């Protein structure tokens, strides 16, 4: 049954591509507007075999992963500080709300000015974009420990530090991992947007230069690569999450379920 469904899926996609190919040819749509799937495939093969894509892929992935690391570290750190300290929360709250509402990608031009055309500006941009979902989820997660569980720990004469490490942190992990999954995709977006605004290399820069030369088939092939990169990065985080959170009902059910606080973040990229 499952194998048949999978096969049906493939057939459906193949049919869709055939219709696309046929329509573009029949209606004689110019290649600079919409290329045929076969032209996109050829552009992909050309780009990969010539080694052109290789370098750009490496740079974009490096930016994304570094940005993810920086943003994640910052989000965890600041989220923990806000969750633990009422005073810190009080002073930080208005700033957080303001930044949360602001589209972070709008900062990209400024960041290019500050950090230059090299890889640093992209790392900063990507880190900034993925920082918020993680911080918000860390705050919510650390604060979500059930009252009963806190009472139990207190009844055992546990210190606040023990309550933090033995209860609050594991309790926050499902939220933090949900944040990580979103942050992973966000950091790729942040890197690409940074490259759009100004870069010497990377897949975002490649898309723009192809745009200038009206190589639309090439752009489609890069988009294809980007979505594969996104799928792989997200898949890696998902697998780690399922391993680490085997005890969490929403993780055990397989498909990733994005938790509310992070989902709300999606529109404030």
């Amino acid at each position, binding site marked *: 049954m499952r194998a048949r469904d999978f096969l049906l899926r493939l057939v459906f996609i193949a049919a869709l591509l055939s219709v696309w190919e046929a329509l573009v040819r029949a209606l004689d749509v110019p290649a600079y507007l919409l290329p045929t799937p076969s032209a996109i495939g050829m552009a992909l093969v050309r780009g990969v075999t010539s080694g052109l894509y290789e370098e750009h892929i490496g740079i974009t992935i490096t930016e994304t992963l570094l940005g993810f690391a920086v943003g994640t570290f910052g989000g965890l750190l600041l989220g923990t500080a806000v969750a633990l300290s009422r005073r810190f929360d009080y002073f930080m709250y208005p700033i957080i709300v303001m930044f949360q509402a602001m589209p972070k990608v709008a900062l990209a031009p400024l960041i290019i000015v500050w950090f230059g055309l090299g890889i640093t500006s992209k790392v900063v941009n990507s880190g900034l974009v993925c920082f918020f979902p993680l911080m918000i989820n860390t705050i919510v997660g650390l604060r979500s420990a059930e009252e009963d569980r806190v009472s139990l720990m207190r009844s055992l004469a546990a210190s606040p530090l023990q309550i933090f490490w*033995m209860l609050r942190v594991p309790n926050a992990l499902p939220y933090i991992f949900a944040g990580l999954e979103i942050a992973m995709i966000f950091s790729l977006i942040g890197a690409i947007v940074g490259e759009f605004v100004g870069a010497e290399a990377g897949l975002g820069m490649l898309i723009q230069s192809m745009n200038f030369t009206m190589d639309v088939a090439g752009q489609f092939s890069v988009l294809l690569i980007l979505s594969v990169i996104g799928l792989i990065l997200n898949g890696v985080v998902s697998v780690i999450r399922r391993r680490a959170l085997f005890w969490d009902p929403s993780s055990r059910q397989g498909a990733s379920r994005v938790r509310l606080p992070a989902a709300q973040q999606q529109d404030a990229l």
Partner: protein
Amino acid sequence: MDGMETALTSREAIAVRHLSKRFGGAGGGVTALSDIDFAIGEGELVVVVGPSGCGKSTLLRILAGLLPQSGGEALLHGTPITGPRRDIGVVFQSPVLFPWRNVLGNAMLPVDVQRLGREKLRARAFDLLKLVGLDGFEHRYPWELSGGMQQRVALVRALIHDPALLLMDEPFGALDAMTREAMNVELQRIWMERRKTILFITHSIGEAVYLADRVLVMTPRPGRILDSLKIDLPRPRGLEVMNTEAFGAYVRRIRVSLNATGGLD
């Protein structure tokens, strides 16, 4: 006279004197507990019975050191309870197990918190798990267990660090009636084997009479102890004891005193 006095107090595990608790500000507050006075002997199983809202859970939280009293004092082996203590084990109404810890890990939580050394207490944990009929389940996770089994794990967790006092806050209240009776039989067996001092809280009169050496009857608004009733039924008590005349007489007497104060609405 003096000698007798010390002899008496040394046999007391718990002494509660003029204990009171008020919630809320001056004037507008609520008196949850008023002038509570009782003692529990070493190894005694005392059950506090009363309707919901009579303050029995508040009493337990004060004894567990989770809540400060407003007046009076509570002593455990002569020392006042001023905060959470390592020599008290608590079983709550829900099992409160951590899903990221397996059965053994949950049972070992007090050992980890109090740094008693897992290796030293491993044998004891296996012993206790066997005592509650969970041998073979050490490496299972809470979500794989039934409600009754989860509460057994909670009981082992409360016993693992060998506390001087076991506080149980309606521990079987969330279980179905059959499981609840089975758990009562089991608790009696464990208590007879280990002779822990237990303060057990319930709103079920039958459960109170079945389990208790002594029943403290509590009434609400403000929470007071109305009656202290020694239950003279031979142990071990089987479930059939509930059908005896003596059992019925105890139940009726408790019901009458609760009714007299409007405790049972």
